[in-house]
């Protein structure tokens, strides 16, 4: 078996986030995910610090590492200077690199994030993009959002935006040279590799589940991972 603990040690966030834990529970007490999911950051840290690769592998394949909302409330309070949130980020990174993320319902959702936020970053230079966030995928945005999307041109103009325009301003079109630089950074630093890894393992999983996964977000597998909740994640 691979030495997963050593692999985690390569991540600077792991080094920053994990000192000796004394199981005081101050992180779990304040953690929103511990309140609304069957989740306990204290136990995650306890498992990880035992440096048992079998247990770490189980963790990397489980839903447990995907509940954290990365609010970092845990970092404020820990009396030993740990940051379970940072450790979670290191675990999630490794789970994706090794393809373990597709083994859990919550982990599989990484493809949905990659194909929305991830794609918008490379296509537009923004993490969110007006046209991508429709009430079909986001019914909670409510009637006001339908009105905004129907009238975005006039409305954003009124708000002083520069939607798709040249030069500075709100939701401007970011020049091609700049977008090329972003892509080049992603290529140089492993961003594209991460995207490709997510794609590769997701396609394999879709095949295994006998689900259709073609490009974009209008397909069976995407809808499945985006909407499925087995109801066992909370009490």
């Amino acid at each position: 078996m691979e030495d997963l603990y050593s692999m985690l040690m390569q991540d600077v966030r792991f080094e920053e986030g994990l000192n000796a834990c004394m199981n005081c529970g101050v992180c779990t007490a304040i953690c929103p995910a511990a309140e609304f999911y069957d989740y306990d950051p204290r136990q995650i840290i306890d498992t990880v610090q035992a440096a048992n690769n079998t247990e770490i592998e189980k963790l990397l394949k489980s839903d447990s590492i995907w509940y954290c909302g990365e609010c970092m409330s845990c970092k404020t309070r820990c009396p030993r200077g740990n940051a379970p949130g940072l450790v979670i980020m290191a675990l999630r990174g490794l789970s994706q690199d090794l393809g373990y993320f597709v083994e859990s319902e919550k982990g599989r959702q990484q493809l949905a994030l990659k194909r929305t936020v991830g794609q918008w970053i490379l296509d537009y230079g923004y993490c969110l993009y007006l046209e991508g966030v429709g009430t079909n995928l986001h019914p909670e945005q409510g009637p006001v959002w339908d009105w905004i999307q129907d009238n975005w041109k006039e409305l954003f103009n009124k708000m002083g935006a520069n939607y798709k325009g040249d030069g500075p301003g709100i939701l401007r079109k970011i020049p091609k040279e700049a977008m090329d630089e972003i892509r080049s950074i992603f290529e140089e630093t492993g961003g594209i590799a991460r995207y490709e890894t997510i794609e590769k393992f997701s396609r394999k999983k879709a095949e295994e589940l006998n689900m259709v996964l073609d490009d974009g977000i209008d397909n069976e597998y995407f809808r499945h991972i985006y909407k499925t909740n087995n109801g066992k994640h909370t009490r």
Partner: protein
Amino acid sequence: MDKHVVVIGGGVAGIEAAGTLAEMGLRVSVIEKEEEAGGHITGWHALFPDRRPAKEVTEYLRHRIRHNNITLITKATVERINHHGHSFSVNVSDGTSLNADAVIVATGFDLFDARRKEEYGYGIYDDVITSADLEIMFASNKVLTSAGKVPSRIGFVHCVGSRDEKVNNNHCSKVCCVTAVKQAIEVREILPDCEVFCFYMDMRMFGPLYEELYRESQEKYNVNYIRGKVSEASSTINGRVSVRVEDTLAGRPLKMEIDLLVLMVGMEMSKTGERLAEASGLSTGVNRFLKSADHHYGSNESGKKGIFYAGTCTAPMNITDTISHARAAVTETINYLNSR
């Protein structure tokens, strides 16, 4: 023996060291920063583990320091210890200087300033108090909320300012656990209808009769123990204090409202001791307490000939150990003076 020893600090350790030296015929000067000698114990109502009145011990100490060989200088601190061949001079804050054949440092501890744990709201939320504040309430035999109401639920937060790198104190203050148990029992005696909770990480019942006291608190007084470090306190609309903790034994977060939240403040190196150490070249350890020459068999030795340590300037201690440590410091001092 016609020698003069300067004892820096007039708390439990300083008084015991001075009294022992005086009885042996040495001349002693005790320098105390407060108006009166006695130390932190003077503000305490009752002591663990037998819950005897603190007055009995303060009475003993008062008696101990009244000796013809002892000169007590109050409202003064020592700024620096200077070494001159076989003797010392110490600079006192009042501008004077005292010569000495040996020096015993007994600068004691400071109680942790609970305001530094901001998330508990001491100094902000009216019904968040410290263990020292509660002793004062015990002395008047009245435990009431800030609004004058009889509390129906009291919580004790262990390890406030101890075992916490966020406030630069990694050490355990040792005595807070058993103090919480003692205070929990006292609350239950004064207010039999009041529910009492201790929020702890570990119950460190290290001394004789401590574990028995802990057991008694469960068996006889129905004190509740919840294993988890309190994460935060906040004020509720009805003036209570809401606390959040993980009940680590259930593996779930827990929230409850409390009428009076007591913070078990720990011991840390005293500011005056820290300044003295720095000015006099005495080395300090990881938690800023004075570093002894040897942890096992030289805990009274400073590493500088003729300067000795007594009591909580070296580490948190209970009264029993402080008194023993002070007597041991005297033994070391006498050995040193004899061998010189």
